[in-house]
């Protein structure tokens, strides 16, 4: 590990740290929309920086091949996760049949009782 490389790593590391700190601080006071935009901007700029080699990194070719279509992969995965989650939740959505039956019998009881007490329906 050369001195130049070490310095570069240090710079990158502190850049990420500062960005993370700034983001978490702002996250507390930002609207959800602003948080999303910030998050996308940060991820987007990182991805752009890495794929265009702006940070002067020499990534192995296999890494670059994965990195380039990563946003598309993530989008599709997010879509699949969403559908799977909603599907699972719909399938396990509890049907309260007992509650419905109990309610019906209670309504009958209630009407009878109120009629006895003199309520004109």
């Amino acid at each position, binding site marked *: 590990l050369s001195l130049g490389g070490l310095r570069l790593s240090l710079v990158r590391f502190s850049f990420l740290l500062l960005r993370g700190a700034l983001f978490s601080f702002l996250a507390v006071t930002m609207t959800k929309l602003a948080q999303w935009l910030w998050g996308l901007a940060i991820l987007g700029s990182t991805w752009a920086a890495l794929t265009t080699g702006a940070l002067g990194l020499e990534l192995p070719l296999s890494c670059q091949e994965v990195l380039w279509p990563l946003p598309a992969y993530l989008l599709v995965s997010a879509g699949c996760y969403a559908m799977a989650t*909603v599907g699972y939740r*719909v399938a396990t959505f509890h*049907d*309260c049949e007992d*509650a*419905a039956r109990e309610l019906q019998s209670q309504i009958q009881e209630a009407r009878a009782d*109120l009629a006895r007490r003199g309520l004109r329906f």
Partner: protein
Amino acid sequence: MATSSGSCRERHFRFRLLFPSDWDKLKNFMELGKSGINYEIIIIDDGSPDGTRDVAEQLEKIYGSDRILLKPREKKLGLGTAYIHGMKHATGNYIIIMDADLSHHPKFIPEFIRKQKEGNFDIVSGTRYKGNGGVYGWDLKRKIISRGANFLTQILLRPGASDLTGSFRLYRKEVLEKLIEKCVSKGYVFQMEMIVRARQLNYTIGEVPISFVDRVYGESKLGGNEIVSFLKGLLTLFATT
């Protein structure tokens, strides 16, 4: 949509019923409140044409006006103002809000109170999506829409509560007053906004699973209009909170 709310002070319960609602539902609701808790009901009727006031007066006679208080209003005003109007007459420290069409069952009220004491929560929210919470009377399409909308809401708003559009909740009185002041939306979105604002103000929220029995009285339809206004409300909250 009919809602009711109650306030309680220690072991005393005060319920407040807000209308419009079918008078039939009101009668049955009254009887179902027999869970051994000392309660009082304050009825706020916004001039419903379906005989609600008549039934309310009859009930007031039957149960006595220490149990039932009728506080009518001249014409139909909003939900938020109805809550405020009712709160003026309530003397308790906690307020429970629920639908009066029997989709929310009073039997859960002791659960809410217990939960509130357990964690000293500012708000206790009934949830249909967790624990043995659930629904009855919904077809597949309705369930998909409900879960889908809830998923979207969780992703976008990260609210810290699993059921945002539900309206069966217990609030501390001052918390409810504060939240009503801050909320501007209507309908489903009003309920969502309450929770979102509560999170903003760092109020604590507890949850109790409830069963929601739909279509006891009439169809509860979810049309295109409701979906559109829900999405508009969701995006507004997303962009402004």
